[in-house]
């Protein structure tokens, strides 16, 4: 690949990414799952289960909101991934992707453009929830560096899940299949440490949560907020993102190849 080709690919990724971001912000139906519902859910969890901090074994925290912020971010980033996949599937349904395939541009750049937008939406979600947290009295023990780590981690997490959603979109080519994974997002989240400390969860969810890579990501988002930065937790979170990302990139690569062959 020459430098000129690389520059052209970057331009395609940027243009397609920017298009996806604009589409998301233009229609309330796309933005609501990323912002409104996770925020409402965070509000209910915090007010409804706030007394949980009095339970024996609950970690020392400034407040239950501090503990729950990671769940809001994770929910929003995972739904950003699903919405990204839905957008890609809609492009396939409407024939826009076929036109891109016919254009003299790199094919992976078409998917990477969508994933770049998902990364930005993940970072946006983290900024949104950090702002909500600060407004309603949460502390970020890790300070500004901790906040930056959280924002980047959320972006990476969204991209990793975005790869899986893109694979589903490319394989099925229908929005309903990708949208059908919405409940699955919650299943995966409930079976992780996103909402509650693993030690206080009921069996068999506790055992599953200990093995779920999303638990590492949830802890990686939470740790800089409730106790400050920890190398061990940070690296574990990166490993969790890497596992999910590898699955996403491999499956989306295979699905893209399959769609190109079919075309």
């Amino acid at each position: 690949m020459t430098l000129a080709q690389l520059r052209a690919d970057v331009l395609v990724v940027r243009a397609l990414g920017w298009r996806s971001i604009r589409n998301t912000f233009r229609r309330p139906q796309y933005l609501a799952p990323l912002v409104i519902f996770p925020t409402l859910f965070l509000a209910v969890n915090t007010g409804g289960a706030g007394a949980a901090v009095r339970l024996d074994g609950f970690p020392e925290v400034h407040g239950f909101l501090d503990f729950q912020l990671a769940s809001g971010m994770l929910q929003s980033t995972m739904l950003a991934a699903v919405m990204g996949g839905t957008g890609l599937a809609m492009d396939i349904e409407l024939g826009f992707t076929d036109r891109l395939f016919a254009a003299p541009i790199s094919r992976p750049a078409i998917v990477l453009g969508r994933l770049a937008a998902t990364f930005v939406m993940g970072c946006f979600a983290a900024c949104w929830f950090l702002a909500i947290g600060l407004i309603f009295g949460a502390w970020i023990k890790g300070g500004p560096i901790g906040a930056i780590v959280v924002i980047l981690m959320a972006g990476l997490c969204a991209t990793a899940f975005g790869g899986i959603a893109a694979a589903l979109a490319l394989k099925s080519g229908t929005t309903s299949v990708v949208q059908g994974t919405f409940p699955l997002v919650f299943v995966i989240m409930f079976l992780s440490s996103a909402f509650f400390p693993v030690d206080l969860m009921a069996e068999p969810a506790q055992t599953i949560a200990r093995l779920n890579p999303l638990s590492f990501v949830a802890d990686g988002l939470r740790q800089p907020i409730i106790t400050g930065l920890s190398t061990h937790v940070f690296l574990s979170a990166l490993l969790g993102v890497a596992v999910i990302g590898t699955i996403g990139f491999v499956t989306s690569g295979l699905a893209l190849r399959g769609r190109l062959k079919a075309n």
Partner: protein
Amino acid sequence: MAAALHLDAIGVLMRRNLNEILRVPGAAIPGILAPAVFMVGLTAAFGKLTDLSGFDTTSYISFLIPVSMLQGASFTGAATGVNMARDIELGWFDRLFVAPLPRPALLAGIVLSASFRALLPVTGVLTIGLLLGVHWPGVPGVLLAIAFALTFSAIAASWTVALALKFRTQDAAPLMQSSMFIAVLFTTSYAPLALLTGWLQTVAAINPITQVIEGIRAVFLDNVTWTSTWHAIVVLIVVLGLTFAFALRQLARTGR
């Protein structure tokens, strides 16, 4: 004679709306799956809350089942509003207006069909809950809980239909869904009122749907009293009356 014709028309509208379940059975799955996932997931995550003093039960899933039943009912009700917005956008609803049918009958057909459609998610979630250990309250208790949930679905349908008629676009869908989310969850959904923290305790105390949740919860926690039941009945009747009147008002304004 006219009344019989109106009943026929209501029946036809109900059948049209119920056809969706028969023709697209897959569309009913999220309505059952989503509240069931929440019920099982929240029980797994927050189940230890029952260790706190103030809970009347050690079975969190029994405590949570009323919320899941109302979620199922409200999803179906909100879907009615979203479908109505789609019908308005596609022009189908304008054709209904030229039919020789009074508008209350038109609205009644739509709202009643939502109640019938809610039977599927409500009983589906209840069955899953009972299989997972929700306390069996006996047949009269189950029937009472289902009746409350179906009436709540009619409330959700009236409210979201009113919103659909006001905004006339599917872009209003998040508003419909989030208002129902708030109505059901900004209550004593996760914990008794005394254990709620901060602003939620105040909101839950004011929110009338708290009384409905408590009315159904009493059934599953074996605490049924006339007080808990009549509070729920009064709230359901009053809120249904208000939301139906709001929808009728929007309907009367449509096309002017």
